[in-house]
């Protein structure tokens, strides 16, 4: 057993080609490290991550019989696995490596060479001392469910489903509407190729509908997600259809008899009517009728059931009930799509005050209905297309560009001209955005076909008898333009579909300020959610066209199959464990665990390793110190604290930094080459609540002059941001109160919560150092008191 052997530590310090060595005197750090207890060898290299650097580590392990490795270089977020592999290659357990960051957290944030070097030595000392207590750990493996739930049955959801089903995964394709198809089924033709939208999508709908690996669940929405990556339990709320899908022949006899004939037709964007029992649209999948209880006479008044009498197959069932169904899946793909903004709050567009002022979605339906004016069914001669209605208006509606409206307007103007050669389409635009394959060429085609373009955002739309008057500035002329039109088309902003935020929350995916889902990494993980095994595609992530949606759907499917393909998932061994001899079964820990991983059995606390996320919150709250955390044990943490707190940096402030967001924010601070005083030394912890009063006292006892807690602002393990922040602040002020009893100024302890985009909030480090400098001195009396408590 390695842990019982005498530690033989090798320290490897990287120049990073000057990135580190320009500021930190690496040779001095090496010299200091070689004198630290347990260190057998200390080496430097220009690039430790290069083959020569890695060979140096491997050769040293063999040559000196090393059983612990300390690597001081860039952030572990970059190369932890590179160096762990070097250990594995030589037969050492990867958890016997401790990697510390002297680039982002040192050389990039400091300028003074002497103090930066001093700090690097402190960081390495903390790591060496911690390395003494490292233990080999084995990751566990759990099987994954070879199935995927795709939420949303639009073009993205359909393509993601087909891709996954063809790879052999069981797919559950869920849509809250009575048919799959989504927005694309409402469109006339698609730019820039002018393919008929229905003609290209309907065959794929049939394919997905008939696929043996796909189960389509309509009228359903996820309401709860539990479990863990690879084994998610998704609970669906399934609304009643009142029609037996397998029995319905979609003959339409029911609808012919239905007395409720004036229900606005959603598929026609409100420009036509349907009955209360209806087929969503002719190509609907599943091909079956559905009853809309909100308009059905029977559900509203209690009598009718005419449709049931008309149905010769007895497919109608008024006793159908809403039900919950839980399905276990390995991964989840969100493809929840878009909604079209209601332009009526923007009064200047007069939407709703004239039947011939329509949205661009309604215009799609007009194109399919024969391209006549809604008011008098005449051919519209002059048609205005108004762009940026609600888009690019941070002060009035949406701040973002809805991206596809320019191309939609071009296409619609083109199709109008094709339909009625005598018509006169005018496009009022703010900036024409036709960036995409064959898009600019399409814009050219429109100009060739006589579409008129006015650069200027329309200021006013006023009904004027049977026509509509528009006023705008032609900004290229610098003149006002007033013109009458027969039909006005508002290219309204595209919004995330209703419930995007809620469904995102179920699977740990946040929404951005625009309301669309946030990908894990904007560029490099563009379809990944924050949780492993959760992906998103299409307009759920932002407005986009069909082609891009399909690309994303296929990416998400690929990501899901990469994850599930191995058949198993590695589970980190960094979990809490109970020292049974010390535990008296008081159960205090149970109320703190955010994941309900703790329970009491046979008078002792036990931890379910599947549920435990290794946050370590339970460790400091145990009155008997009977809980510890693997790879961040009490011994290891205290060794780090004592290691960094020694040395010549004065004042020295230990920054206990949450490992996911806090640590990365500090990385980004360095990446941005912002500066803070070298008096701050970061110690990575799973969460700041892993650190209790005891650790803070130890820090002061070891020579530290202050402590700062760096926490993630919105990573509270299921708590709301407000509650999480409250707990965080409560935890820190509790420590401050306790410290006062020892005569320690509360100004020596501070807290900051950051998010990744707001990494610059770490500029508070300056304040922290100043406050500690200005704090009441740490008296010998206080130090003696602390020492007394710690030794008792």
């Amino acid at each position, binding site marked *: 057993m390695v842990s019982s052997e005498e530690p033989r530590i090798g320290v490897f310090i990287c120049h990073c080609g000057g990135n580190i060595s320009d500021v930190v005197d690496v040779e001095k750090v090496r010299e200091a490290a070689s004198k630290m207890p347990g260190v057998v060898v200390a080496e430097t290299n220009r690039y430790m991550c290069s083959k020569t650097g890695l060979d140096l580590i491997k050769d040293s392990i063999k040559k000196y019989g090393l059983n612990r490795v300390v690597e001081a270089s860039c952030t572990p977020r970059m190369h932890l696995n590179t160096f762990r592999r070097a250990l594995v290659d030589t037969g050492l357990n990867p958890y016997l490596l401790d990697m510390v960051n002297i680039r982002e957290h040192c050389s990039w944030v400091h300028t003074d060479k002497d103090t930066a070097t001093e700090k690097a030595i402190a960081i390495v000392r903390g790591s060496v001392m911690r390395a003494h207590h490292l233990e080999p750990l084995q990751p566990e493996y759990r099987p994954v469910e070879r199935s995927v739930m795709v939420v949303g049955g639009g073009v993205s959801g359909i393509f993601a489903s087909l891709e996954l089903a063809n790879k052999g995964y069981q797919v559950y394709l869920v849509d809250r509407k009575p048919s799959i198809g989504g927005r694309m089924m409402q469109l006339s033709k698609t730019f820039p190729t002018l393919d008929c939208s229905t003609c290209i999508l309907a065959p794929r709908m049939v394919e997905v509908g008939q696929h043996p690996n796909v189960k389509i669940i309509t009228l359903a929405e996820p309401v709860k997600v539990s479990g863990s990556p690879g084994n998610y339990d998704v609970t669906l709320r399934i609304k009643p259809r009142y029609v037996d899908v397998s029995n319905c022949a979609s003959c339409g006899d029911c609808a012919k008899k239905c007395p409720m004939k004036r229900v606005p037709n959603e598929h026609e964007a409100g420009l036509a009517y349907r009955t209360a029992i209806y087929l969503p649209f002719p190509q609907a999948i599943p091909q079956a009728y559905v009853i809309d209880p909100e308009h059905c006479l029977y559900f509203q008044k209690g009598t009718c059931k005419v449709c049931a009498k008309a149905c010769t197959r007895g497919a109608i069932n008024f006793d159908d009930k809403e039900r919950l169904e839980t399905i276990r899946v390995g991964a989840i793909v969100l493809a929840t799509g878009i909604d079209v903004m209601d332009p009526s709050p923007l009064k200047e567009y007069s939407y709703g005050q004239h039947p011939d002022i329509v949205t661009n979605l309604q215009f799609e339906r007009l194109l399919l209905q024969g391209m006549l004016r809604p008011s008098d069914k005449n051919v519209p001669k002059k048609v205005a297309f108004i762009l940026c209605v609600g888009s690019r208006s941070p*002060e009035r509606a949406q701040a973002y560009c809805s991206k596809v409206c320019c191309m939609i307007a071009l296409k619609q103007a083109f199709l109008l001209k094709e339909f009625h050669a005598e018509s006169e389409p005018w496009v009022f635009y703010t900036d024409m955005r036709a960036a995409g394959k064959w898009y600019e060429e399409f814009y050219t085609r429109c100009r060739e076909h006589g579409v008129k373009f006015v650069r200027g955002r329309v200021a006013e739309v006023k009904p004027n008898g049977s026509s509509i008057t528009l*006023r705008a500035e032609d900004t290229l002329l610098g003149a006002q333009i007033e013109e009458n039109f027969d039909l006005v088309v508002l290219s309204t902003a595209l919004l995330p579909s209703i419930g995007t935020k809620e469904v995102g929350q179920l699977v740990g995916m946040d929404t951005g300020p625009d309301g669309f889902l946030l990908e894990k990494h904007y560029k490099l993980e563009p379809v990944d959610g924050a949780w492993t095994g959760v992906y998103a595609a299409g307009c759920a992530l932002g407005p986009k066209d069909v082609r891009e949606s399909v690309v994303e759907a296929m990416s998400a499917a690929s990501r899901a199959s990469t994850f599930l393909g191995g058949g198993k998932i590695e589970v980190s061994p960094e979990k809490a464990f109970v020292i049974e001899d010390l535990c008296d079964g008081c159960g205090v820990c149970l109320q703190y665990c955010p994941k309900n991983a703790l329970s009491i059995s046979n008078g002792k606390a036990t931890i379910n390793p599947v549920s435990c996320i290794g946050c370590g919150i339970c460790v400091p709250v145990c009155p008997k110190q009977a809980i510890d955390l693997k790879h961040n044990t009490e011994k290891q943490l205290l060794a780090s604290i004592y290691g960094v707190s020694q040395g010549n940096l004065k004042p020295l402030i230990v920054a206990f930094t949450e490992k996911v967001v806090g640590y990365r924010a500090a990385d980004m601070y360095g990446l941005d080459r912002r500066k803070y005083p070298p008096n701050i030394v970061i110690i990575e912890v799973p969460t700041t609540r892993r650190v209790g009063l005891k650790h803070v006292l130890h820090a002061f006892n070891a020579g530290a002059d202050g402590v700062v807690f760096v926490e993630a602002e919105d990573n509270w393990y299921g708590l709301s941001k407000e509650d999480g922040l409250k707990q965080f602040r409560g935890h820190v002020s509790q420590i401050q109160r306790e410290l006062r009893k020892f005569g320690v100024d509360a100004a020596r302890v501070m807290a900051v919560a950051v998010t990744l985009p707001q990494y610059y909030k770490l500029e508070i480090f300056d304040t922290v150092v100043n406050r500690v400098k200005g704090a009441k001195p740490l008296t010998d009396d206080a130090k003696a008191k602390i020492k007394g408590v710690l030794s008792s």
Partner: protein
Amino acid sequence: MNTWSRKITPDMMDPNFETTLRKKLGEKGEKIPLCFQCGVCSGSCPVAFAMDFTPRQIMELIKLGVKDLVLNSSTIWLCAACYSCSVRCPQGVDLKQVMDTLKEMALEDPKYSVAEKAFYEKFIEVVRKNGRMDEVALYVKLMPKSTIMRNLGFGLKLYQKGKIHLSPTKSNSADQVAKIFEKVLAKEVQQQ
């Protein structure tokens, strides 16, 4: 009103113009750089037809720093303060406030002497003195004496129809109006 050669040359630029204006506008000034020239302001403007530059063009000139064209424009004096532009601006630029501040800047410097500015100043003078508008008094203040003979016939017509009076007309509440002016001026001094 500006007469210019439709060419902007380096000598017309004042690199500090936008900064100065933004400072004067305080918090509202922060929105000025957000203007992306969509033209909603000018499309909404009820008096744009009479302006030498549309409000949108004024914004562009501000951003380029062409101070003299802006402060010599008729736009800033013709603004009817109807707020349509401010209400509809998608970027939240308060154009009405911008126009007011530009007026203040133009008033500070006698170098800017467009007819619209003179009208504005004399108009205020007359109202301050008489408590109401007096066309004859305004005419005398505004126009050179040499024009009196030329316009005599037109004046006579107006007189016959009772549109103008030869004796100075003064509001009954002229002293109260004067007090308002005093209060406003005192407030302005206070703010400065």
